């Protein structure tokens, strides 16, 4: 993949470049602030960008602002947000455009190299990937309303794992279920959340969003 990295910590930036190169990806630009990120993405059109949320000058949410601006300008441009902390607010803002191709991971996840690269690849392919930590916080933070009230605890569990961007087989493995029963749960969730079968939408992403917005 062709990747742009925006991270103000030199150590981490170098580490990410090294990791991606080692695994055969091409880092087309490595920058340290939001404006340079926008410029680099416009210029290189990468498959995916890894963006740190806190960057100069204010070290609050520059990365997020730049990402939202980029996605408004270039729909479907894939962004993996990368942060030291979980900010559910940020996750919901980023997911608001429902286009998929976004991710939100804690920096610690990079220690699990293959999982991290897997998440990066899925974001590049247009899926939505959320850190398990983000998901569990969203679970506790949001007051679930009617849409989700109808879900059984088991279905919620499945939805949570879906929000993490896991495939059906991975969910089956995590919950010690057969692939078939996961299928059933998933279609039951889609039914309860009134998500129609359609070509254009990524139903899994929509389910997660429905869940986030409720």
């Amino acid at each position, binding site marked *: 993949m062709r990747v742009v990295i925006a991270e103000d*910590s030199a*150590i981490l930036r170098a*580490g990410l470049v090294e*990791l991606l190169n080692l695994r055969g990806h091409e880092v087309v630009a490595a920058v340290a602030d939001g404006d340079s990120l926008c410029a680099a993405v416009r210029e290189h059109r990468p498959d995916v960008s890894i963006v740190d949320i806190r960057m100069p000058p204010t070290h609050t949410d520059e990365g997020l602002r730049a990402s939202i601006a980029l996605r408004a300008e270039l729909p479907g441009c894939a962004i993996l947000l990368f942060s*030291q902390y979980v900010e559910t607010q940020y996750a919901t803002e980023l997911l608001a455009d429902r286009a998929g191709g976004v991710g939100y991971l804690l*920096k610690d996840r*990079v*220690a*699990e190299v293959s999982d991290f690269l897997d998440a990066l690849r899925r974001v590049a392919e247009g899926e939505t990937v959320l850190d398990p930590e983000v998901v569990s916080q969203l679970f506790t933070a949001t007051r679930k309303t009617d849409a989700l009230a109808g879900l059984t605890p088991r279905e919620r569990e499945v939805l949570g794992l879906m929000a993490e961007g896991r495939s059906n087989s991975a969910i089956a493995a995590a919950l010690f279920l057969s692939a078939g029963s996961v299928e059933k749960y998933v279609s039951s969730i889609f039914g309860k959340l009134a998500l129609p079968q359609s070509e254009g939408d990524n139903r899994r992403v929509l389910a997660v969003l429905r869940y986030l917005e409720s």
Partner: protein
Amino acid sequence: MITRLALPGRVLGAQLSRAYWGELAWVIIGAPLTLAFAVLVVLGLILGAGLSLLTIGVPVLIGVLAGARLIGIAHVGLARALLGTTVTPPARPELRPGLWNAVKGRLGDPLGWRSIAYLVIRLPLSLIEFFLVATLFVYAVSTLSYPLFWFTLHGEAMPTFDLRVDTWPLTLPLAATGLAVLLAMPWVVRGLTEFDRLLVRGVLGAEDLSKRVRDLERSRATAVDDATRRLRRIERDLHDGAQAQLVALAMKLGIAKDELAGDGDIEQVTALVTAAHANAKQALVELRDLARGIHPAALDAGLDVALSTLAAGSGIDARITVDLPSRPSPSIETIAYFTVAELLTNAAKHTSSAIEVDVGIVGDDLRLVVRDGGEGGARPVRGGGLAGIAERLATVDGGLDIDSPPGGPTVISAEIPLRK
């Protein structure tokens, strides 16, 4: 206990004392001054109230209050110069933006209104004082000189008072009463001005308590801001330092683990582990520095140990003398430590010669003195290091004194009250 023998000396001394002449001047200047001011202010008030309130009356009132404020300040100055009474006038209310707030702020100026009240009370008082003192003086002067011009009057009463005696020798006791009055004047004047002192203090002086509350509010705000800023800095240091190092470390170990699980190239794994090892050591350094910034471990052993450790560790050439009979409370020690640390860093920027640091007890205060032979000219700049130190000291009622003439040497001393 004053002996009788000293009385003549005291009486004579009182005639010449500066305080007496100051009080006398206060009484004599006071009457015409107060009269003129009171007339002006009352006219202004009548004018302001008489005019339509909403158009031109308000500006006139504001003008009168501003004038009254100046009069008040002038009286505070006079009281300090002539009566030796020092009061702090109430502060002007802080003006918030907006026309209405500006008008409200100006009309609510406590010193303006207090000055008007002061003038109103002071006016009769000053006139009474003035006439009383003038009468007594005239009496003293006329009776004292009576023996000299008794011959010229041919039995008529003296022109100032309806007094006459038939024979010259009898003028002497009268002159003696005049002398007694003259000599007693310092005590009379003192008694009269005592009222004025009360008046100035009570009406023109800000209540000490409300001032204290304001000071405390301000220093509390400083303390809260300071703590917030410090926490934010710690968080930033952690985020940019140790946390980033540890993430990089975990990432390198993760790659190495993957390499080993496959048929890893041993050289690459070695390089990764070496880099991870460096990250781990760097993270340790960052954490240690951060912890030291939060609470220097050497402080547990006392200020002297902490300060010498600080000087040794920073490579600053400092001679540190700590002379404390007992250890102050941990919070005082901490604030003293960081004060010296900042002053040392400051001083080291401006001089290459040795810096002297003395820590001792003066009265009920812990006193720190930092002396350097730099070029001098140190000034507290708003938002600068010295101003920051002074603000932080204010949170524990301490103060900073800067003596830095151009050309040096610079001597900065801080005092921190030792509360039990």
